[in-house]
């Protein structure tokens, strides 16, 4: 009977799988298995090789990304639902390299804490795998799968300090908020699927462009778009959906905070970019005002609350909220300038990853001595750790957008996108809001610099800070990239490369 049924239906065709295109993900999957095995077959004393395996795995996954980039051909699979184009490659490379830096940040922190090392790196790599898939996902289902693959390990990692109340709060809050956001997003996705009859972003884009041609369904399309955007607004911690971020960031282990505030946020932006630029761009009457308000509110509220923080991790959390506002800003003019807006966001993401990871690396290094994340404990750092002080200064002022450090170029491309191609009132006003917010932000970044350079050490303890090798490597990578992005055309080059396959 089964045989006759099969004969009746259309024959099942195995989808074409381009293994070269999938190679980064396959290598990463191999690395995940290797990490598990390494954990299984090492004793307590030799467990130090686990982070090395994870790091090598991430770098190995970069190799196929490079060969794909050299090959240059845009590849698409599964009817266009999974694409490997320049956009995907640039962001995969960013996720893998930033992931490597996070492994470097974690090495000593996890080894010295009483944590399960093998599982930690297993979850970390799984989450990064989700992100590399996200960069290629051009279909509602693959976006959702990628999102869950990157989020679920992150929920566990956020609550990793299980004996600490703050750690528990971090995990639970992040989990509940994340699941809630997923539900909202899924509802929006189901509306979009119901109206367009396809889960492919390109098809949805075509249906959305027709709009009223579907017969009075425009309000539902609008609702679907708004719900999906709101779902990702949670992910990128845009105001008013940011409330989980500070508590989660404070309670999570610091390397995971860096991971959440850089990679997880970037993954949210990658999904948003793909959804907006491919599927929603025809409805700029909905997307533009929504993004305008989200951007303006996010940067302003994030900055104002950051002003009042006394804990450096919370300060960086709110500064990350404000930075998300800056990244959302170009999307407010996406209708008239989709290419420029997309390039601006990608350029910003690349620069932001370098400088923010660097800032967290210094926080980790300093906390090894002070055992505190209070800004007041940073006094006198310039006396006993001048190198770390200079590095932190570079990262902070890069975040503030002072040339010639990377951050200025990030702000610059945002300004450029807002004023292109013709100068509109909405664009100019938002540009001025960005300008004013940059000045507000400088105040709290400079406040930390002030503490490090101009105040005495709070307890008079001026023994030097010992920086372990892996942290030093992370710091070196971050500072070189931050400065190089500021004085050269690298970041904008990558940003401009990151274009989709023409649909």
């Amino acid at each position, binding site marked *: 009977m089964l045989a006759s049924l099969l004969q009746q239906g259309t024959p099942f065709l195995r989808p074409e799988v381009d293994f070269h295109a999938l190679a980064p993900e396959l290598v990463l999957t191999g690395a995940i298995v290797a990490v598990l095995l390494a954990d299984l077959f090492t004793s307590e004393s030799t467990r130090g090789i686990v982070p090395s395996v994870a790091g090598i795995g991430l770098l190995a996954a970069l190799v196929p990304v490079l060969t794909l980039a050299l090959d240059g051909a845009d590849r698409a699979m599964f009817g266009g639902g999974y694409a490997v184009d320049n956009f995907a490659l640039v962001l995969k490379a960013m996720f893998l390299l930033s992931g490597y830096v996070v492994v470097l940040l974690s090495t000593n922190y996890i080894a010295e804490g009483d944590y399960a090392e093998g599982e930690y790196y297993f979850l970390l790599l799984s989450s990064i795998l989700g992100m590399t898939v996200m960069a290629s996902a051009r279909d509602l289902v693959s976006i959702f799968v990628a999102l869950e693959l990157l989020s679920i390990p992150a929920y566990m990692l956020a609550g990793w300090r299980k004996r600490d109340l703050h750690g528990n709060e971090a995990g639970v809050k992040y989990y509940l908020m994340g699941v809630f956001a997923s539900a909202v997003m899924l509802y929006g996705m189901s509306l979009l699927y119901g109206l367009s009859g396809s889960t492919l972003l390109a098809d949805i884009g075509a249906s959305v462009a027709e709009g009223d041609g579907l017969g009075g369904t425009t309000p539902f399309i609008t609702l679907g778009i708004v719900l999906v955007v709101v779902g990702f607004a949670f992910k990128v911690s845009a105001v008013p959906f940011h409330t989980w971020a500070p508590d989660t960031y404070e309670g999570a282990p610091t390397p995971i905070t860096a991971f959440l505030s850089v990679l997880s946020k970037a993954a949210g932006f990658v999904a948003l970019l793909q959804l907006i630029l491919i599927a929603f761009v025809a409805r700029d009457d909905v997307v533009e005002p929504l993004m305008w308000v989200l951007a303006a509110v996010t940067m302003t509220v994030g900055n104002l609350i950051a002003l009042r923080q006394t804990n450096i991790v919370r300060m960086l959390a709110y500064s990350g909220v404000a930075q998300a506002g800056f990244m959302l800003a170009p999307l407010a003019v996406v209708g008239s300038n989709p290419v420029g807006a997309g390039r601006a966001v990608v350029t910003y993401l690349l620069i932001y990853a370098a400088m923010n990871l660097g800032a967290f690396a210094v926080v980790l290094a300093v906390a090894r001595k002070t055992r505190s994340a209070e800004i007041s404990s940073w006094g006198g750092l310039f006396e006993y750790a001048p190198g770390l002080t200079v590095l932190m200064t570079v990262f902070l002022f890069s975040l503030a957008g*002072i040339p010639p450090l990377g951050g200025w170029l990030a702000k*610059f491309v945002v300004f*450029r996108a807002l*004023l292109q191609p013709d100068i509109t009132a909405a664009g*100019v006003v938002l540009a*001025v809001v960005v300008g004013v917010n940059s*000045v507000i932000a400088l105040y709290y970044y400079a406040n930390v610099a002030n503490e490090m350079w101009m105040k005495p050490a709070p307890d008079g303890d001026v023994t030097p800070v010992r920086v372990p090798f892996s942290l030093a490597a992370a710091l070196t990578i971050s500072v070189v990239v931050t400065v190089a992005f500021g004085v050269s*055309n690298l970041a904008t*080059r990558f940003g401009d490369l990151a274009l989709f396959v023409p649909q």
Partner: protein
Amino acid sequence: MHNNDFLTGWGLSLMVFLPLAGALVMMLIPKAEEQLIKVVALGSTLASAAFGIAMLADFDYGHGDQLQFVVNKSWIEVISSRYIVGLDGLSLPLVALTLLVTPLVIIYSWDHFPEPRNPKAFLILILVLHTGMLGSFVAQDLILFFVFFEVVLLPMYFMIGVWGGEERQYASIKFFLYTLFGSALMIVSFLAVFFAAGGETFSMAELAERIANPAQFHLAPVVLSTQVLIFGGMFMGFGIKVPMFPFHTWLPDAHTQAPTQGSVILAAVLLKLGTYGFIRVALFILPEAAVEWAPWIGLLAVIGIIYGALGCLAQTDMKRLIAFSSVAHMGFVMLGISSLTTFGLNAAVFGMVAHGLITGMLFFVAGSVKERFHTLEIKRLGGLLLQAPKMGWILGFCTMASLGLPGLAGFWGEFPAILSVYNPGAGLSEELFRAYMVIAAIGTVLAAGYLLWLLQRTAFGTPSEEFADEHIHDVHLTEWLAWAPMLVLILVLGVYPNLIFHVTDPVLTAMGDTFQALGK
């Protein structure tokens, strides 16, 4: 016009980046090797100055209106920004001033490191500052200019914040926030002018051409109201840096709290970035908007002159008084600019150099007085001429130069600036500008008042009781070395002002002619 090939290719870049290279080398030298650190710092500024002097010698003064030693290389091509540097009659005096002042500041620092010492960090910051200042004066691309313009912020922030006086933290953050606010608006207006001119280039010369002759580039002409708005953004950026009334309030705090070296560099060079930017960027690219703004610039300039002078009369602290006098003197520079005439612009550039030398010297003297008496409160000082006669005479010389005594440099910045607004260019209202002239002239009287009063209270009379028995060391060797070149130049420029007018006149004549044509 033919410059030396090597200097054309490398001269400006080496001059700008050698100090930065010196700073990188110094980072590798251990903190304890103080002597070596000082030598490297001085050496790299002198090496940079050597290239500067070679270019001064090779500069074709007959063609001062053209950019020379131009390097035009691709930089961040996706935002259409290029590495364009060049030297013309407008940049040259200011580059020379910078090349002179920074080594002198390092020489002065030799045995005058402010607390908490740390010569390594202090000198590294000065070198980074040096690169930023030189770069701003030679950059011919708006983005490159912006980057250099901002590079000076951080070192100055730390210099005030770490090595400054009691209120240093407040002063440093105020300085930083004010200037950054101006910069944010400035970069938006740079972008606006970029897009208005077709969105293809940030080169200042090309932008000016595109705005002037849009048809030639197949562009729609930029509406005057847009130009006026864009000029407004630049006005904020440069006006805060100058500083113009009412954006001047950061200056007295920054100057008073900064260490001597910081004050000298701030007064001698940093403030000039603002006025230089006005001429080089705002006036040059948007001449039509400049005509619309000129009456307002003139108004703020004369308010600054009077307000600064009255502010001086009310000060009880010597350094704060000199700081307020900067507000007044930069008012004269801005007044010369607002006349939009060749004459006024020449006066303005001369005024920048003269103010740099004179006020720089005044801050040096104030620093040395503070070091000896541990106070700058005017009423506690007195009788400097008795206790340290040489220093007293130097202070007298500088105050005379500052109040515009003919025969010293200050005169040639102030007097022609006042004269130039008698006949403003570009069809500006004569009545209005003559009114400005009268007000500015009153400002010179007030200047004489506060400066002579300062001299009288600090240098004349007998030492106050608390210092009467103290031995006050007169001018040291390092002080002589640092001060002598500036004192000589104040005198030389006063006697032979053509030294600068000769350089600046060709390029400013071209600019003045543009405005003259607009007025018809």
